[in-house]
């Protein structure tokens, strides 16, 4: 799965706003929208650093050796929970933490 950063506030319908700077999974938008918005420079593909580089992730990363950050984000929570000896909810929170860390701060005004 590819991840993108919103370079402007995006309105994905029904008050579903993807705020400027947020990193999101491409599946939040239709393939057509992804193609057009990428061409227009409204979204940009994100390259993630390895898990062990993310602040506070050295020990966690060791539990999922050889897994890239994108592979981690895409893997089912229950499988990761078994590997990392924790709850699926915790895995979900960790995934959200990575995406928050990758987001750029909200603009002022």
């Amino acid at each position, binding site marked *: 799965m590819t991840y993108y950063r919103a370079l402007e*506030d995006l309105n994905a*319908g029904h008050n579903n706003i993807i705020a400027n700077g947020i990193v999101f999974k491409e599946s939040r938008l239709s393939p057509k929208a992804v193609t057009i*918005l990428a061409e227009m420079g*409204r979204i940009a593909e994100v390259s993630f650093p390895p898990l062990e580089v993310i602040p506070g992730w050295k020990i966690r990363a060791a539990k999922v050796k050889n897994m890239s950050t994108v592979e981690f984000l895409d893997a089912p929570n229950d499988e990761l929970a078994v590997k990392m000896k924790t709850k699926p909810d915790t895995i979900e929170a960790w995934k959200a933490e990575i995406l928050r860390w990758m987001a750029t701060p909200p603009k002022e005004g």
Partner: protein
Amino acid sequence: MAQTTTDITACDVSVWLDNLAGVAKDISGSSNSVDLSFSKVIGELRTFQTRWARRQECGKDCVWTLMIVYSTTTDEAWHILKNWFFSSAPNLRTCTVYAPDKNIGSDMLSGEFRLQDLKWTLSSGNADPVSVTATLVPSGEVTLSTVAT
């Protein structure tokens, strides 16, 4: 610097306004102009022995002026606006403008508005369709986002 090739026209702009039931209605077919005027509140300071003013900014505001067609069909612009003024209790309604059109990648300006005034002229010697001007002022933030769906 290369000349732009992505300039737009306003031909396919889409304007949506809530009706009395709070349902967004496309009033593009019964309106033909929308004037979007955005402003910032600027404060000024001038002291002795300086020539140039110092300025700082604070709030933001806007006024939207809709030019609509006086028509007789339910849920067209005039029907919604006249009911808003005459028949409903004071209320906020969502108004949204899409430019250059409503497709993916277009700008979407949206906010909650109050109807400030309605103006029109009925002239016996004029064969043009009657136009009505409506002034909307926002209550709260007016947002700009990109259509992504």
